[in-house]
């Protein structure tokens, strides 16, 4: 198995794909920021935000429901928000007893809980759209334009370049472990917990050594090709006039939405 499972980019020729990557990063962050600032229970503003996402989906020619389909991954963490149901004073809807805990479900708590889920769900969708319409190496380059320290950007670029290589290595290690671990029918497989953990630890140690030695080889190969401490790209991603216009437009729209949400609500 080759682990290009990490690639999230979907090629298409749309106006969204052609935007400079740093513009897309800024707009995605603005959008997430805007979600965080919308008041609890302002379903109209949440709805408008979602309509914008659907529109962006259409504009990037991915099909209107693309991000919707991919957006369910963040749901497990919703468990952490469940306690929000019981944490706010308000009109009591129901009371449960769990051991010594008294859980009082309030209307304010329910609204907070649903708002958190919706905010999280909207934010994940814009992030999905960002990586689906931008090649990840371009995204990394955008981070450099956004004044992230060069060294950190280089480390991220290396991570992206080698994560599938080392993931393949892990898959080989796991397959080897599986091949060694035959189980007779009716018998318990494997040793004690400590024994199993030691096996996993040895695999991590093995992976570390292989990675370390690989980094040595990579460094020398790069040095012999003229590596001078930072990565270059042929794609310069200079900001064009319409990139600035798009950023200004996004900023205005989000400011208008916030103004609307906080004056009518």
């Amino acid at each position: 198995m080759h682990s290009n499972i990490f690639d999230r980019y979907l090629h298409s020729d749309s106006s969204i794909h052609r935007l400079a990557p740093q513009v897309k990063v800024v707009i995605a962050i603005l959008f997430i920021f805007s979600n965080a600032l919308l008041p609890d229970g302002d379903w109209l503003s949440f709805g408008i935000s979602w309509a914008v996402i659907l529109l962006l989906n259409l504009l990037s020619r991915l099909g209107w429901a693309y991000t919707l389909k991919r957006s369910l991954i963040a749901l497990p963490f919703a468990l952490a928000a469940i306690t929000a149901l019981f944490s706010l004073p308000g009109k009591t809807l129901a009371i449960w007893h769990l051991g010594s805990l008294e859980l009082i479900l309030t209307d304010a708590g329910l609204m907070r809980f649903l708002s958190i889920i919706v905010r999280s769900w909207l934010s994940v969708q814009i992030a999905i759209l960002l990586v689906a319409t931008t090649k990840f190496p371009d995204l990394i380059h955008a981070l450099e334009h956004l004044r992230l320290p060069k060294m950190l950007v280089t480390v991220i670029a290396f991570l992206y370049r080698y994560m599938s290589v080392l993931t393949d290595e892990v898959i080989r290690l796991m397959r080897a472990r599986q091949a060694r671990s035959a189980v007779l029918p009716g018998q318990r497989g494997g040793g004690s917990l400590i024994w199993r953990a030691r096996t996993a630890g040895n695999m991590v140690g093995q992976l570390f050594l292989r990675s370390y030695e690989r980094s040595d080889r990579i460094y020398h190969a790069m040095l012999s090709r003229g590596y001078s401490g930072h990565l270059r790209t042929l794609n310069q991603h200079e900001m064009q006039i319409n990139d600035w216009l798009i950023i200004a437009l996004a900023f205005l729209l989000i400011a208008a939405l916030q103004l609307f949400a906080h004056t009518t609500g």
Partner: protein
Amino acid sequence: MYFSPAPLHIPDGFLSTIVSLISWAITIAILSVAVKRTEKLDEKQVPLMGIMAAFIFAAQMINFPVAGGTSGHLLGGALAAIVLGPWAGMLVMTAVIGVQGLLLQDGGLLVMGANIFNMGLLTAAIGFGLYKSGEGRKRTLKLGLAGLGAWLSVMAGALATSLQLWLSGIARLDIVLPAMLGVHAVIGIGETLITVSALAFIFRTRPDLLEQAEGPARGGRGWIFIGAAISLFVLILSPLASSNPDGLERVAGDLGFLAQGKDAPFSILPDYTLPFLGEGAFSTIAAGIIGAMVVAILVFFVVQGLRTVKKNV
């Protein structure tokens, strides 16, 4: 199943704006020191850190069956800091958490500052600090300290996550704290076992890699105090807060930090409102930015202070 070694990757929407911004400010302050310190090392260090980030990313997928379909994983912050030094370990973990959030949507973007702090900076500081305190001692002692550091690093991450959720007005302390700490006390054992046996393996095969990291080159003895301080904080606060969450709420209330849910931290900036907008989001943003700046400036001065102290010694 692949990408979440521990349910610590907070998605966007779960932390209040203030908590997110302050976490970012602290994280950026610490990371900028890390970048400065690491830039002084030789240029070979950068590709090494990149590959090591890919190593941590891949190593997080290695699991072992525990019981009833659950499995143990590695978070890796302590391990990264032990083999690479604390600053490089922090940068490596930052890259891993950054890519998990940006590429795989495992953890949000606005809350990434908090995620990096919980899973990358705290874990590296504790792991390296405790390991460093065994410098020059027997190998078994070093491994024991590394194991303790690994367990505490997971607990510290869980504690910080719970506190951030609570400060955001999302979770009730008396539910989230015992739940998070209870789950992670078990997850932390997996972290300990894998970290210790991975280090033991490296000691057996390439002891030179670990021994060259000793001495003040990668991190001075100050890390021992930092590691010990965070560990003590975790060890004292966790049981205290779990058994008596009302106590913590009261302390926070007395400090004026938390009056009620998420509106509380603004009380540091009383009456801060824009007259024509009322007490809406814009006042909140402004208050958040000011709060974040105050924290950043404080951290900056503390770091500067530490530096001059060091020069004088």
